[in-house]
């Protein structure tokens, strides 16, 4: 079941890579938040009591409830609600609609991101002894999401696109943490939340400042500092 959600998460990256409208990007971030929630609900090896197929009310204890709460906060509340609302607010303040001047045309972006995702699926199917410690599909797709996001950061021209790509990279890393076939220490969850906090507040605030100071959000304005002045 969770495989469908993982594949959809990978496909959402292709859509983000091949479109330039910020609103579409934000909608995809909401979709990714929900998909991550469903992946947690259906596929976590350490929390398989969530599984509808094996669900029994008698097995639910307080620890399960706490884990469920953490997952809901991380995926639904932060990734699907808080970040999109904040980004939409920034979008309204800056009157930015699209990143039309990417270095690569959309068609090529589509081809390249599809190839990276395909490579991710290939990684998931490699027979390698070390892969016994992880869930291969989680690993393959998360690696491709991280690679596509890093690549998007390099080709996009506005700071808002860079922030969105950074958040998709964080989603890829979140999926990678789910690839570990055991329970991750709670400190890791705290770290993920702090990371998102940085992405939203600091980057969001800086985007606002950049827009006020430079009148638009082009990254090219931010290349004035040079070694040989």
């Amino acid at each position, binding site marked *: 079941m969770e495989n469908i959600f993982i594949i959809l998460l990978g496909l959402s990256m292709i859509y983000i890579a091949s479109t330039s409208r910020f609103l579409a990007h934000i909608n995809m971030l909401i979709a990714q938040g929900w998909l991550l929630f469903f992946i947690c609900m259906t596929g976590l090896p350490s929390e398989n009591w969530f599984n509808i197929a094996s669900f029994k009310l008698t097995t639910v204890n307080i620890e399960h409830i706490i884990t469920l709460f953490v997952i809901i906060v991380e995926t639904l509340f932060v990734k699907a609600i808080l970040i999109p609302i904040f980004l939409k607010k920034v979008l309204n303040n800056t009157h930015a609609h699209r990143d039309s001047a990417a270095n690569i045309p959309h068609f090529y972006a589509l081809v390249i991101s599809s190839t990276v995702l395909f490579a991710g699926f290939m990684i998931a199917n490699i027979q390698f002894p070390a892969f016994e410690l992880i869930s291969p599909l989680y690993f393959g797709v998360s690696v491709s999401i991280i690679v596509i996001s890093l690549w998007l950061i390099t080709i996009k021209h506005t700071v808002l696109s*860079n922030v969105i790509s950074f958040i998709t990279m964080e989603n890829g890393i979140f999926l*990678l943490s789910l690839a570990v076939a055991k329970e991750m220490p709670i400190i*890791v969850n*705290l770290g993920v939340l702090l990371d998102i906090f940085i992405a939203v507040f600091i980057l969001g605030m*800086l985007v606002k400042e950049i827009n006020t100071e430079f009148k638009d959000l082009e990254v090219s304005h931010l290349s004035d500092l040079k070694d040989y002045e």
Partner: protein
Amino acid sequence: MISLILIFPIIACLILFLVKKRALQNSVIFLYSLIHLISTICLCANINPFDIEQNFFALDGLNKIFLLVLSIVFMAFSIYNIEYMKDDSSSIKKLKRYGYAVLLFVLSMTGAILSTNLGLTWVFIEATTLASAYLIYFHKTKHSIEAAWKYVFICSIGIALAFVGIILLTISTGNLNSLFYEDLYNNARFFNEFWLKLSFVFILFGIGTKMGLAPVHFWLPDAHAQSPSPVSAMLSATLLNSAFLMILNVYKIMIAANTDNYAKILLLAMGFLSLFIAAVFVYHINNYKRMLAYSSIENMGILVIGTALGPIGMFASIIHLIGHSLIKAAFFLTSGNILKIYGTKKINSISGILSTDKKTGWLWILSFIGITAFPPSILFISEFFIIKTMIKNGQYIMGIFFLLLLTIVLFGIGKAVISMSFGNKSEKIEQVKMSWLMYFPQIILLVIAFGIGIYFPFSETIEKAVIGF
């Protein structure tokens, strides 16, 4: 005592929030630096009268040195800051934010140094970015926004990659469900080698970004050049060290797992690349704060090269770390004096510092002598040890290359410092009278750096610190 260092800044932030007084921000920062220094000295001397039992923070042989360096540099910062911020016409709100940012910045660095858990160290390293972003952006000019943006964005990506490294390390640990260093060291020989090696690559590149190692150093020259001079001193002399300590702790896991040969190659590659980048860029540079930033990149390179050379190299690295932090902090603080006198950061617009302000001129020259490792600077001992280890190991080509790059950097910095210090005094420059507080911290830092270069009493402490490397 550990609890005191970690709780006080939070209380201080609350006080700053509640009391609206312009001078309060400096007093609170100074008070924290004093508490920090006294607590650190007590902890180092094993005097720990009141502390709460907990597992997440502890002092060991290695982080003791890092904490002491942080305390001394922070004390110098807080003294200099009193006078530096005196003429600042910013609003109370802005000054308060500066105060919060400084307190939280030092708190997060202290947390990163004292943490006994890899995950927690990562959280604190991330928090340093959060706290220091405002400090870089303090002047609110176009250039400072650019520098802050690059800093936050590049470091966040680096730290996110380091997080990937931690996840991969967790995979390699198999059934062990702990990120405490002690557990990781004890069980390292059972870890899966493939995942462990992969995790080291990610952690080195990720945290290397924060440490300013090439090729992921791009934020460093911009951030150091645009932030207020005392903040640059803190960034260079303490923040980079905190990141280095995390790399050292992970490297120790690699040693315990017997995969250190692989790690050494990566460390040497990044170290020499950092030296090379510094040598190439420092030669033509026309901004003295950027020049000092490239010197930091060079010195971070030396630290990781020393680490990769084995126990003696590691011993030299720790000495180098102490020396670099003290001298670079003095250098950056003196650059604040120069900026105050001349109002420019351009090297070719400045000449005759010695005839304009003798004390600043001499501090500038002495900092240069210190940073380029002329005896009796403590850095002479560390670099001498590193070269000696290379020769002893039969790595002659590496040694020659190391010396050559150091000489180029020395020439680049020397050229700029000499042209700025000597020559005729510019008539347009008005005499600026500066308080003794703007000289005193640098004098103390340089006296310590040159003093321990003549008589070094901490050999035993450092020997204990490098056990396990």
